[in-house]
Structure formats: C-alpha cells, structure tokens
C-alpha cells in the first residue's frame, strides 16, 4: 500500500490541481462554452470528476496515515513546511522580514481531507444531475461555469492555510452564490422566477455580507495583535498568549472571536442572519443542493473548525447557544412549511444549528459537529437533488399538498430520498445517526461538566429539534410519496415519454398569490432521466454508508469509531496546541472520559427515542391520518401562524433594518438635495455671473483684436493671392529665382 503514503513533494501539487482543474474549466467555459458541443457541460462535469478522484485518493492517503483507533496517525501537513508555498504580495525579501509579506500555501489535515472529498463528490454529482435537470435552460453554459467556480471556491477554502486565503475564497463563494441564486433573473420567460430570483439573490448577498464584514473585522483584530493570518501561527500565538495570562483570555480576543463567529452566522445561516437561506431556493435546485450541502453553509462551520483554538470560552458559549436556538427555531418552522424545498431549507438551517452548537461545546463536540457537516453534505445534497427530481417530475410544482403517490411513479427517487430521510432523522446504521448521536452526547457531556445555562439549553433544545427533524422529514415523505397523486392531470396528455419531454424547457405558469412557483397541469409524473437518478442513488449510498464505514474497511465491527473520528480529533486537528477553551481548569481528563461515557449511553437512548417519536408522530398525522393536522393547526391558532410566518423575522428585519436603511437614505437624500446641492448651485451661480463678465470681455475686446488681426491677414492674403496662379511652372520659376537671390546674397555678403 505504498501509493497510499502521503508524499509532500508530489501530493501538494496534486492537491493544488484539485481546485485548479475546475478553475481552468471555468475559464474555458466562460469564454468558449457556448461554442462547445453540448454547450460544454461534459467539460466541467468531467473536470469535476477528475477533481473528485484526486480528492478521494487524497482522503484514502489521509485515512491510511491515521490508521489507529483514535486519530493515532496525527495526519497534518502544511505545504510551507514542505517548502512549497507561493509568494503573494511580497514587499521585500522573505516573508519573515515584513508582516505585510504574504504567502499562499496549503493546509491539509484530516478535516481538510474529509471535507475536500465530500465537496468533490457532492460537486461532481450535482454537476451530473444538472446535465439532466438544467437541459434546455437558456443560460445552460453559464450555469455550469458558475457552479464550477462555486465548487472551486469551496475546494480552495478547504485547502487554505491562512485566514486571508480562506477569506478570498469565502468572498468568491459569496459572489457565485449571488450569481447562481439569481440564475433565473435573466429569464424573461418566467416572470415570477425572474423577480423572485433577483430579489432573493440580492437578499442572500447582502445578508451574508453582514457576516463577511464581521469576519473581516475579526481577522483584522487578530492580525493587529499577531501580524499573521496563518492558522498554525494564530493557534500557537493565541495559545502562548493565553498561557502567559495564566489561562485568562484577553477581552479583545473574545470580541474578535465573536466577530469571526459573525462570519459563520452569516454564511451558515444562523439566527438572526438565517433569513437568506430559505429564499435561496429561488435558484435552480442543483444550486440549492450545492449551497445547502457541500459549499456555502458548510464554509461557515468549516471556518469554526479552523479557528476553534482562537475562540475564547465565552465565544464558545455564545456559539453553542446560537446553534442550539437556531436548531430548535428552524425545526419548528420546518414543521409548518408546505413547499418541498422550503422544508429542506429549514431543515438545513436546523442541522447547521446542530453543527454550530456541537462545536460550541468543545471537546468531543468539535469532532461531532464537523462530522455532522460531512455526513450532512451527503444526505442533504441527495435530499435536495431528490426534491429537484420530484419537482422536475411534477412540472415544477413545489407545493407538497399537490403531490402524493409518487412512491410508485418515481421509485428510484423515492428510494434515494427515503434513505436520506432515514439518515437525517438519525436512524441507526445510517450516517446521520452517528454524527447526531455524538452531538447530543457532546451537549450532555458539557452539561454534566459545567452546569451553565447555555449548556442546559443546548441539552434540551437539541433533542427536541432532533425529534422535530424526524417529524417534519417523515411528514414530507408521507405527503410527497404516500397516498395518491393530488396534482392536476391535464386533459389530452398521454402518460408516455412524449408528453414528458414538453416540460424540459422550464415553461412555468405562475400565480400572483405569493405562493412559490406553482406548476401547471401536466401528465402524471414519471421518473427522471439517468444523469439525475444515477446521481441520486450514488449520493444516497454515501448517505447510508458515510457515517460508520469507509470503503476500505468493510469489516464493520473491527473499528468501533467511525472513520471521521479516527481521522479527526482535537489533538490531530491542532497539533502542538493545548486547547484551553474546552472545559474549565478544574476538570481533569478522567472526569471528561467518565462524563463522555455516561453521556454516550444516555445520548444513544435519547436520540433513538426522539427519532422514533418524530417518525411515529408523522405517521400518525400524515401516514395513517389518525388525526387531522389541519385541526391541530387550527387549535394552535395564533401560535401556528406565528411559526408559519417564520416568527415574523423577515417582517422584523423589514421593519427595522430595512426601514432604518431607508430612513438613513432619505436623510442623506435631504442633505444631498438641500445642503450639497445648495453649495454646488451657489458655486454654479457665481461661475455663471463671472461667465457673463468674461463673455462681454470676450466679445468686445478679444474678438475685436482677433477680428482686426483677421482683417489685416485678409488684406495681405489678397495681395499674395496675386502670385498664386496655380501654375506649377511659375512656382518653380519663383522658387529658383528665390534660390538664386538667396545664393547671391550669400555669395555677395
């Protein structure tokens, strides 16, 4: 197994190729895509395939290196240590001379390996899915170009070895999400989508921009103190600083850490900046799959994973509370949503809350949160693509109330979505169970070790959110695939493939009632084409296997720890750093082990219980219809409405932030119109008066002079004109005569 050995000499170059291949593809596609056969979709899909193969190979190397039970290998590589880095913004000489000299390098560890592989795999299958889903789109080639660069941004972000490089890719990703969410904003054939996409893309961009600003401020605060953006240096310097202060974290570090967490709040859609994510589904469904699974929202959690050692305990408490609140908050809204993609969007926010809360608990929670990020990438991308397949089959109908009975009509999609739903609900053997179980375990551990309010809140909120997750996911499954088809079947449409082909062109009929892109009557839904179903099934397989197993070690029982836990542990993630932000000083290693052990059994029980409870509730209400959900909603009355309207957060933001912005804008306008314009106008009037003076001077004196000169010139001209006969020979005679005269003067003088 020698080829599985990580060789820094060559492998860093291979890693560099990972984002570079799709980047080259992007450049080619942008300029020449429309001229390529099939508009270049094969180029980018193939390029992403190569990227995926490299990423998976690299993951295999990382797994091989950390063969032990609990991250024994210490797999951690920085390219600059291997002498491979690229100069960027050199002011003078070497990097060590000036803090303004920046180097770009690659940081490749267990977390990076897992995330790189996950992003590569999900991106490839999203590309493949798009070949079928986006067929006939009027900006087909640009869609592929943009989604490819989107993946490049995430791949680069995962490989970044410094905050600054990470931030660069972070911003590229923000831009690409804007372009992709707004993909339909250039499609005048669907006025509803056009307006919605334009608005949603702006909303996403501006909302995440708030987080980006926070991240930038946080970065700069750290730079101001340590003059470096390199992760390794930041961890070490922070660690030393805290040690020097006797374990006390300086106040500025807490503030800076909160700002960095602000970046996560924006990108990973945590409360209160979560508002952009549900609207991001205005973009094409493959884009949603990308945003919700591998890229964008994962970037925020990944950032937490990379910056964990520099976050103070106070920041982590905030992180945990925010995550737990978001998980519960979004789960309740997910219960009330009727739009298929909206259910998934709220579930994403909820799951992101799980991850963030887990990282906030520190210790084992850090690993659990990052683990959940990877497994979530698999099953959520599969869920979204399945939703895309369903929507595709139902003629762009997204309302679950008009679906149903698709179990038999779209069996492959049903299978894929079913597996992923089991995974997200946390059923044992499915990937989501392992990560979610660990998150709940981490919350319990934290509570038992330090009985703080945030920890208790997390310990209660997370299991409830997990139950709600199981509930609304199975509600979605029952409504979509169970029962009978509730959509309108158009008269005169056959059931065959012929009728289905009519609807590849995204021809949508929209109503203005604020509903989301209602479809139009068509033939009964049929299964989607092969690029879509193949992608679905592959991702579903990963969603099933991704938790416990890894392809190389199929002997399930030999390893008790999931592959991710073997790959990633706090010790291997941050080598040489003594994490001081986990638990208090008084807590010993034995206490932690004991608490984890106790929490492990409890968490297993609780998560099984809540999953079963949620599934049973969904079956009771929507599968077997033992009770009417409508009646329950009516009984809840105002509470239900508040939840259904997403707790009025959008309205709150509109009423405060937007209103304030508008007020400021109109204030500025008043200032502009009255003060600045007044000054400008005054200057203008003065100039005008001066101008009149000048004009008089010009007309009488200057013009008089000029005219006089002109008249004199004219006089001479008419004199000289006598000689101008227009005859060449006369001119020659004059010239020679003149020459002679000149010669005479020269000679005689």
């Amino acid at each position, binding site marked *: 197994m020698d080829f599985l050995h990580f060789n820094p000499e060559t492998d860093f170059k291979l890693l560099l190729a990972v984002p570079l291949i799709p980047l080259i593809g992007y450049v080619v596609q942008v300029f020449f895509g429309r001229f390529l056969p099939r508009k270049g979709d094969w180029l980018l899909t193939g390029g992403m395939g190569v990227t995926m193969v490299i990423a998976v190979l690299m993951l295999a190397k990382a797994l091989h290196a950390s063969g032990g039970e609990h991250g024994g290998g210490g797999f951690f590589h920085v390219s600059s240590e291997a002498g491979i880095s690229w100069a960027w913004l050199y002011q003078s000489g070497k990097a060590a001379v000036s803090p303004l000299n920046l180097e770009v390098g690659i940081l490749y560890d267990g977390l990076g390996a897992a995330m790189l592989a996950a992003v590569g795999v999900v991106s490839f299958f999203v590309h493949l899915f798009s070949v079928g889903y986006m067929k006939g789109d009027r900006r087909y080639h640009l869609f592929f170009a943009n989604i490819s660069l989107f993946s490049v941004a995430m791949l680069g972000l995962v490989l970044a070895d410094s905050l600054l490089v990470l931030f660069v890719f972070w911003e590229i990703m923000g831009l690409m999400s804007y372009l992709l969410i707004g993909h339909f904003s250039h499609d005048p054939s669907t006025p509803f989508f056009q307006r919605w996409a334009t608005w949603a893309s702006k909303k996403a961009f501006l909302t995440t921009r708030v987080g980006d600003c926070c991240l930038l401020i946080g970065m700069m605060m750290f730079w101001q103190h340590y003059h470096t953006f390199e992760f390794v240096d930041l961890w070490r310097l922070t660690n030393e600083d805290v040690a020097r202060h006797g374990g006390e974290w300086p106040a500025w570090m807490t503030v800076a850490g909160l700002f960095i967490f602000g970046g996560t709040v924006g990108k990973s859609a945590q409360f209160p900046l979560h508002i952009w994510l549900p609207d991001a589904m205005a973009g094409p469904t493959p884009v949603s799959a990308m945003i919700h699974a591998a890229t964008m929202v994962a970037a925020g959690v990944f950032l937490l994973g990379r910056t964990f050692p520099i976050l103070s305990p106070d920041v982590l408490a905030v992180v945990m509370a925010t995550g737990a609140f978001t998980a519960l908050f979004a789960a309740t809204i997910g219960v009330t949503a009727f739009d298929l993609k909206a259910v998934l969007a709220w579930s994403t926010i909820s799951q992101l809350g799980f991850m963030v809360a887990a990282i906030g608990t520190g210790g084992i929670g850090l690993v659990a949160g990052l683990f959940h990020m990877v497994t979530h990438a698999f099953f959520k991308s599969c869920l979204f693509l399945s939703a895309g397949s369903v929507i595709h089959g139902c003629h762009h109908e997204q309302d679950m109330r008009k679906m149903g009975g698709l179990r038999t009509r779209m069996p492959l999609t049903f299978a894929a979505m079913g597996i992923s739903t089991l995974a997200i609900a946390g059923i044992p053997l499915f990937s989501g169970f392992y990560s979610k179980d660990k998150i709940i375990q981490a919350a319990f551990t934290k509570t038992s070790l330090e009985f703080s309010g945030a920890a208790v809140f997390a310990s209660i909120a997370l299991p409830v959110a997990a139950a709600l997750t199981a509930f609304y996911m199975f509600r979605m499954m029952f409504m979509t695939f169970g029962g009978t088809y509730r959509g309108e079947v158009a008269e005169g449409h056959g059931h065959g493939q012929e009728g289905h082909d009519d609807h590849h062109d995204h021809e949508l009929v929209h109503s203005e009632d604020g509903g989301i892109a209602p479809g139009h009557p068509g033939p009964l839904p049929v299964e989607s084409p092969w690029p879509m179903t193949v992608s679905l099934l592959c991702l579903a397989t990963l969603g099933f296997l991704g938790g416990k197993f890894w392809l190389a070690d199929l002997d399930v029982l030999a390893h008790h720890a999931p592959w991710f836990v073997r790959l990633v542990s706090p010790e291997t993630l941050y080598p040489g750093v003594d994490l001081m932000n986990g638990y208090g000083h008084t807590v010993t290693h034995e206490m932690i082990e004991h608490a984890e052990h106790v929490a492990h059994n409890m968490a297993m029980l609780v998560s099984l219980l809540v999953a079963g409870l949620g599934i049973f509730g969904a079956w009771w209400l929507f599968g077997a219809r033992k009770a009417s959900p409508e009646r329950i909603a009516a009984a809840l009355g105002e509470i239900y409405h508040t939840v259904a309207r997403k707790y009025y957060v959008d309205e709150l933001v509109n009423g405060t932030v937007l209103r304030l912005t508008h007020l400021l804008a109109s204030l500025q306008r008043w200032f502009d119109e009255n003060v600045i314009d007044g000054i400008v106008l005054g200057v203008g009037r003065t100039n005008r008066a001066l101008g009149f003076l000048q004009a008089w001077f010009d007309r009488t004196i200057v013009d008089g002079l000029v005219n006089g000169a002109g008249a004199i010139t004219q006089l001479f001209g008419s004199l000289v004109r006598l000689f*101008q*006969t*227009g*005859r060449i*020979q006369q001119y*020659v005679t004059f010239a*020679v005569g003149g020459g002679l005269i000149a010669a005479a003067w020269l000679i005689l003088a």
Partner: protein
Amino acid sequence: MGVGAYVAVSAALFALGVVCIIARRNILYVLMGIEMILNAANINFVAFNRFGGDGLDGRMFAIFTIILAAAEAAVALAIVLNVFHLFDSIKPSDVDLMRE
C-alpha cells in the same frame, strides 16, 4: 580631373533640369527635369565622397536618391494618369484648380 570639374558638370545639369521644368509646356518634361536635378545631386554626392571622405556615406545617399527617384517616378506617373483622366490634358498650365 578634380572635384571642381564634377561640381561644374553637376551645376550645369541642375540648371538644365530647372530649365527643362520651366521651359516646356508638357507635364512629362517636368518629370524629366526633376530626374536631371536628382542626377545632378547624385554626381555631387559621389564626387565629394570620392575626393572628400573615405566612407560610403556619399554613395549611400546616392543610392537613396535613386530609390527616391524610382518611387517619385512611379507616384508622379500615377498622378499624371489621374490628371489626364480628370483634365483630359497633360499641360501643366491647364492644371490650375489650386488657384481657386
């Protein structure tokens, strides 16, 4: 023969060239006169190169003059063609639109 004799021949040829341009009423004579003047200049160049310096400068200039003369002849003849086309005459005295 000294340089003075060559210069004298050159000067005479120059004078004849000027006369040729002025005296005849046909545009072709103008062209021929110009050629004479250029040749007169060439004689001077070569003569002074021979008697004065030891480089190639004078002969170089002569070569350029010849090249220039060739180009000039081609362009001038093209102009003559156009003049003939426009005025139906090649008398220089008829071509006096410039006066206006």
